[in-house]
């Protein structure tokens, strides 16, 4: 097989990698924010329920979690209720939302209480204070840890192959069965290029928020 053919083959696998990555990010960010609100709630049952959920999801290996999400409904109901790709997205979104929620919580709790109080004495509602005052400061604070977590997500997508979702490494392994091994090493280039682009993006975002100090 020529270099070009291998590249095209791997690219088609990488498009699946990108699909898992972007869908997870798109859904896990808002869900993570929601979970962080629940784990900070003054209402104890809600707070503890979500603290336990976060503990379980973060405590179970993502690979095992994928198996559970994909096979468990079939095991209980007798037939699977969704496909491999959907199962992957559910597992990744829930898993990453829990990690993100802790980053959000740290970011929100780091904002001095005085900011909220200043908003309150100016007659702002709590929602207005969050949207116009706190949120942007939270974002500034969490860009570095978020960047870390999102880069981990890029590479975690490779785990989807355990429930036979055909992403880039799976493609490379298929080529190995034709006795060509170098494409497997070549996949690293795809990851490196993408993570490089993300690193630049996060650097840019950090710089853009650099005009003020908290």
């Amino acid at each position: 097989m020529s270099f070009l053919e291998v590249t095209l083959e791997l690219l088609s696998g990488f498009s699946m990698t990108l699909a898992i990555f972007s869908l997870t990010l798109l859904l896990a960010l808002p869900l993570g924010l929601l979970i962080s609100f629940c784990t900070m709630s003054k209402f104890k049952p809600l707070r503890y329920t979500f603290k336990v959920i976060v503990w379980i999801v973060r405590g179970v290996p993502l690979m095992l979690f994928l198996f559970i999400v994909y096979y468990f409904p079939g095991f209980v109901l007798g037939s699977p209720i969704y496909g491999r790709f959907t199962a992957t997205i559910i597992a990744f979104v829930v898993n990453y939302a829990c990690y993100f929620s802790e980053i959000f919580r740290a970011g929100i709790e780091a904002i001095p209480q005085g900011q909220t109080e200043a908003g309150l004495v100016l007659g702002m509602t709590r929602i207005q204070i969050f949207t116009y005052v706190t949120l942007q400061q939270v974002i500034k604070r969490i860009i570095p840890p978020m960047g870390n977590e999102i880069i981990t997500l890029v590479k975690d997508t490779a785990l989807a192959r355990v429930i036979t979702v055909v992403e880039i490494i799976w493609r490379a392994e298929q080529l190995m069965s034709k006795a060509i091994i170098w494409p497997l090493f070549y996949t690293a280039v795809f990851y490196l290029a993408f993570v490089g682009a993300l690193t630049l993006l996060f650097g840019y975002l950090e710089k853009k928020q650099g005009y003020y100090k908290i």
Partner: protein
Amino acid sequence: MSILEVNNIIKNFGQTEVLKDISFTLEKGEVLAIIGSSGSGKTTLLRCMNYLEIPDGGTINVNGISYFDANEQRSLSEKEIRLRRLHFGLVFQSFNLFPQYTVLQNLILAPRLLRKYELKTALKTFQITKNEYKEKKAALSQELEINARKLIAKVGLTEKADFYPCQLSGGQQQRAAIARALSLTPDILCFDEPTSALDPELTGEVLNVIKDLKSNDTTMIVVTHEMEFAKHVADKVIFMVNGVIEEEGTPKEVFETPKSPILQAFLGRTALK
């Protein structure tokens, strides 16, 4: 009628009684200085007046209308508390400017949200027509900016209007915070140790701004450790000890002929500083 009547305010934090039966009145245009050592309850009293703490007992009336009543059976909604808070402005010890906004934006944010809300309500309740609403909304930004720039000029920050808080000195930040507190034209402006977080050479500019506000007939309550300021600017001084008013009177009475031995000792200590 007094602009402010505080009657028998009590506040506990758990087992600790922070405010024990605080009562005083304030007339329109008066400046009240609250002095006392740390932990005497001065700041808590200010926070109670701004609904940042809810007192456990007592009443507060503003312009003769009930502002806070511990015996009120129903609990107030957030919206009611929000509207009541607008009677008071508060300047914090640590400024609490919004760091991502310029001085001008800091001043405009809250009034803009409030005025937009008022316009929307007026439209919903048919007090204004849709066209009037659109006109007023369009004129709003300009109107708010003009007003904000006036306040910024008043505190002497005209050149710094488009600067971010991190580009300003502590004194400038506190002056911006004062302008922001004025942007909603509160009936009573409270200061919580406005110069305590500042380098000594910067306290003067902030105190001068507060002094100038006095000539504009603004009613003010200033919690302070600046005895000279209390002596020369206040119309009335309250000395607090362990959550009670130990002594109150005109600056002359309090500083020149203090009756309480605790106050005498306190003044002796601060004079030595």
